[in-house]
């Protein structure tokens, strides 16, 4: 800047220094970028239902389709071990949690790559893309949550601990965000990640108690199932919304541990790798 140059509007200009750095991410960036994250989520939503004859009706049709498939497969063919809870509210609660996790993962894993032109050509804060892919999945979550609550009320199951729902929603969000923090930066450099995610999602619905309960499973199988973080989340949700008797405390604790682990690892990895996104995407 010119020395002694009178500033035209008399206001000091913000000075930014850019240099070699391994990390430039700060926690407050998540909050500071909420507007653009929201708009990117809105963009994804709009794009999804533009030029679709049924448009947002798919928000209702898609979960009903999954509900029918799960009901036929698990309730129709096998004995789903619901601990005495009617199957409809039981499966809806599992589906609510699972759909949000899987849809956010499938949209969020490749979010840096699919927004490649933005990442290479605009100063968009990269962290906003993660929030954006979660915002884009809020409408399906809302629909399934409404279904779940309606079913829980209709069957007269909704217990007092349902008041904990805001905490459960927050936990679900944080867990999903943490997963995206970890996988989306890795997917920029290693596209293998984009091949793994559909596998996790497709196989995951069988090894996650979405359409069945873990209570009646043989102890070795049950021990394996509770290592899955989604199991603990679903157990907690079923306990809160359907008064699931004797939820697996171990599964819930393990899911909590996973959340913390993913959050710490994801934050470090995202912060480390985001400065290289424009070079690798």
């Amino acid at each position, binding site marked *: *800047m010119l020395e002694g140059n009178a500033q035209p509007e008399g206001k000091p200009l913000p000075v930014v220094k*850019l240099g070699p750095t391994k990390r430039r991410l700060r926690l407050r960036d998540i909050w500071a970028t909420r507007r653009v994250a929201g*708009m990117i989520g809105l963009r994804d939503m709009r794009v999804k239902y533009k030029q679709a004859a049924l448009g947002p009706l798919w928000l209702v049709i898609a979960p009903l389709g999954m509900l029918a498939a799960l009901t036929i497969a698990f309730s129709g063919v096998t004995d789903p071990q619901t601990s005495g809870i009617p199957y409809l509210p039981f499966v809806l609660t599992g589906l609510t949690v699972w759909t949000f996790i899987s849809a956010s993962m499938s949209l969020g894993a490749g979010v840096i790559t699919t927004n490649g032109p*933005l990442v290479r050509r*605009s100063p968009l804060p990269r962290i906003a893309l993660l929030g954006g892919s979660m915002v884009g999945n809020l409408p399906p979550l809302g629909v399934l949550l409404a279904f779940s609550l309606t079913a829980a009320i209709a069957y007269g199951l909704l217990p007092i601990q349902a008041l904990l729902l805001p905490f459960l929603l927050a936990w679900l969000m944080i867990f999903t965000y943490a997963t995206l923090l970890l996988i989306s930066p890795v997917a920029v*450099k290693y596209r293998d990640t984009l091949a793994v995610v559909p596998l996790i999602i497709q196989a995951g619905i069988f090894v996650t108690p979405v359409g069945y309960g873990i209570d009646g499973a043989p102890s070795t199988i049950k021990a394996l199932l509770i290592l899955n973080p989604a199991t603990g989340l679903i157990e907690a949700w079923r306990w809160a919304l359907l008064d699931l008797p004797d939820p697996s405390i171990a599964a819930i604790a393990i899911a909590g541990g996973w959340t913390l682990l993913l959050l710490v690892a994801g934050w470090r990895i995202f912060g480390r790798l985001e400065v290289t996104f424009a070079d*690798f995407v």
Partner: protein
Amino acid sequence: MLGETISLPQTLASLNPFSSAPPRETFKALSDVSFTVQRGSFFGIVGANGSGKSTLTQTISGITVPDAGTITIGGTILPLLEVGAGFSEDLTGRENVVLLGAILGIPSSDVNDSIEAILDFAGIHRHFDTQLKRFSSGMKARLSFATAVCFPADIYVFDEVLAVVDDDFRERCTTEMQRLHGEGKTILFMSHDLDLIGSICSEGMWLDRGVVRTVGKIADVADSYAAGAQVD
């Protein structure tokens, strides 16, 4: 192979302790680049394809970080590094303008204040609420440029953005950039078009294969570029 960083043969080679894989090739897009742009100047950066202009603009705009050195920027910066950068084909013109404003971190009130000027400048009133994919490439370019110059900032960075528009619109763009310059804004303008740089910029720099060859008055830069380009 340069650029291909991950592959199965490489993974296998890295697992084999006896393999003697060749070291990974690297490429320096910029090296030892050092220059100062005075506040309020119209600064042109000229260089052939592959001279590092785009890497430089990416670094200045905070899109990628340098391996060494620092960049000090006084003021808010608005980069337009590519025609249509930040636009989504499935959104309407209006939705794109609003989204781009958010991406660039411009307060929504400023975005709304700019919309009228953007419409006038781009001349697409009728099609503002049409999806971008129905736009002609010229309309896209006009909207993209109009958005960039109408949003408020202290420093504007344009990278090869006038290459795809017709002469008439290029004329209006240069007039608009000169108006911004007249208002005391700093403008960085990259091009391989020496005549264009020479006619609109006051100072400039010649970037050649990642190194600075000349910095200073635009006439000097133009002379040495013209001479140097002939020697090469």
